[in-house]
């Protein structure tokens, strides 16, 4: 199931499948670790709900919903990930 990053629940992890943004923005986001195949966790929301902070590549990066809604990812079943890694 593919959904935009902005739809992730708090604490949910997903693997990015497609960054549907213009090239310059894609490049910028890639520098922060948002690229196809990267694992992203929705770690917290700003007090007013937007932007949302994502854990990506060991750092915490905040994106506005307007950006996050154009990054598509498939959620990872947490249990499955743990088994894979373990």
């Amino acid at each position: 199931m593919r959904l935009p990053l902005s739809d992730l629940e708090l604490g949910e992890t997903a693997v990015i499948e497609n960054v549907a943004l213009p090239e310059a923005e894609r490049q910028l986001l890639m520098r922060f670790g948002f690229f196809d195949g990267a694992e992203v966790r929705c770690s917290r929301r700003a007090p007013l709900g937007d932007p949302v902070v994502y854990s990506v590549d060991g750092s915490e990066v905040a994106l506005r919903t307007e950006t996050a809604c154009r990054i598509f990812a498939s959620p990872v079943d947490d249990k499955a990930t743990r088994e894979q890694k373990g």
Partner: protein
Amino acid sequence: MNPLLQIVASSTTRSQQQIRNVALIGPPNSGKTTLFNRLTNLRQKVGNYPGITVEQHTGVMALPGQEITIVDLPGVYGLNPYSEDERVAVNVLNGNMDGVPRPEAVLLVLDATNLTRHLSLAAPVIALGLPTLALLNMGDLLTRRSGSIDAVKLAGDLGIPVAIVSATMGTGLEAVGRFLECANSPIKTTLPIVQDVRECRKWAARVASESDYRPPLPPTWSRRLDDILLHKVWGPLVFMIVVGAVFQTVFGLGQPLSNALQDLLTDMGQKAAPFIANGFLRSLLLDGIWKGVTSVLVFLPQILVLFLFIGLLEDSGYLARAALIADRTMSFVGLNGKAFIPLLSAYSCAVPAIMASRTIENKRDRLATILIAPFMTCSARLPIYTLLIAAFIPERPVVGPFLGSRALAMLLLYVLGFVAAIGTAKMLKSSVLKSMPAPFVLELPEYRCPTLRSVGLRLMDRGRVFVQQAGTVILLVSLLVWGLTNLPLHQCQPPELEDSVVAHLGHLIEPAIRPLGFNWKIGVGLLTSVVAREVIVGTLGTLYGRDPQTRSVSLQSALQHDLTFSGAMALLVFFAFAMQCTSTLAVVRRETNSWMWPAIQFFYMTGVAFLAALVVHETLSVLN
């Protein structure tokens, strides 16, 4: 082998060439600036690259027997020319930047606790073929949080020497000197196509894992602090307390310090007076130069207090959280959260506020912030506000004992400035400064304890830039105004004020300001207060003091006799909007590196002020 991999062709070794110029490059938040300060021991120069707004920092590093110039490049994640900062870095490294010699070696700073991500900058830098030393900064943090890296393996993979350092602690830095003594070009190694960010990322991940990189454990402290500081309820509460404290301190501590400095400097001028021959020279030195210079210097305490706060907030990592909390609100006017602190500090003084706008990376957002900042009610407006309100608005309780009519008038003037700022921002952001959809990406760095050294350095840096840059411009303008009050000469004597060029100018603009209810004296005040808003009070004092009719009364009652109520209100509104501040214009010129923006800002704000004052005067005249 992956066809996308290429071989770096750089067989020429440069071991014999002496190194004089070195470039320091690294991603934002890699501790590059701290390292730069360490290496140069404060022997630095700040300027602008020609033609653009990017700041150029150069410093001198002393090695036994020679001195090396270090250029601190802007923090970049890559070398693709997407942003102005990256273009600057590329141009300097390729020797295509006017006035900056091509560096013979590169120091590449990477955050050891974030190595997988930061390593992707290594590929394009190594590909340049210059002798390069990779400095894995924050090595102490990596170890403390149980991470590790095999530096020897990493050096083998990258084909360049690698040193683990800590810029904050000052450890491991002797490697820089050793490297610069006998720097070699990178050994041939496989690198990805450097234009392809994704390939660089993959390559970085592979290199990191081959070098046995174990990332540090997540910073539990930071996460726990964020649980509070970004909490739904506590987050905004702490935010408001912090904001209140900044506002209160800049106002409550900076203002008295500014006043004390003003008294001290005036006193010094008066003490020096007897030692200078009376006449032309004394007038030039004291009224011209000294007054001009001191009118700038008095802003220094406020600037230093504000930057002390910004330094503490930024170095501790809280500024990024504040931007996150404020972003939602700021987005309503088309700006992002990073514009919040500059606009807040503009309530004290637009000069430091405009300097603080550097934390906004998006050029258009930064420009919009710079353009609206002077609308916020700065402390230089208070003298004229207080004078006119006291003279024309009778004190009456409005909201019981809590709010009187005078305080309400003051509050309304604050609101007026704020509304003008927001309206202008909205207008700019939906037209000329409409951003290309540059997404708001904000990295939340780990919380760190700010060091005295780095905060102190920042204060020195900002203070020096302010005194140097704004000081030279305001000095020239003050000299000009002084010259105009002393011309034309009659038998080698300066004229009476009424016969001076300034008075003629006052009469000249009188027809333009009469519809606002102002007379020629106010006109002269408007002219001189272009230097600084509070100057109008002094100018009016001098003018009414020379007038035989008002000589013996206070300025307040002189104004009551000479101005109508509607004219006084129009003058208040005029000052709420008008751009009467050379220091601000000088700083805007410096920060935007163009005369166009300060010119537009000046005419726009003065235009708005004129129209608003006209409307107020007409309306009140009709009502009366």
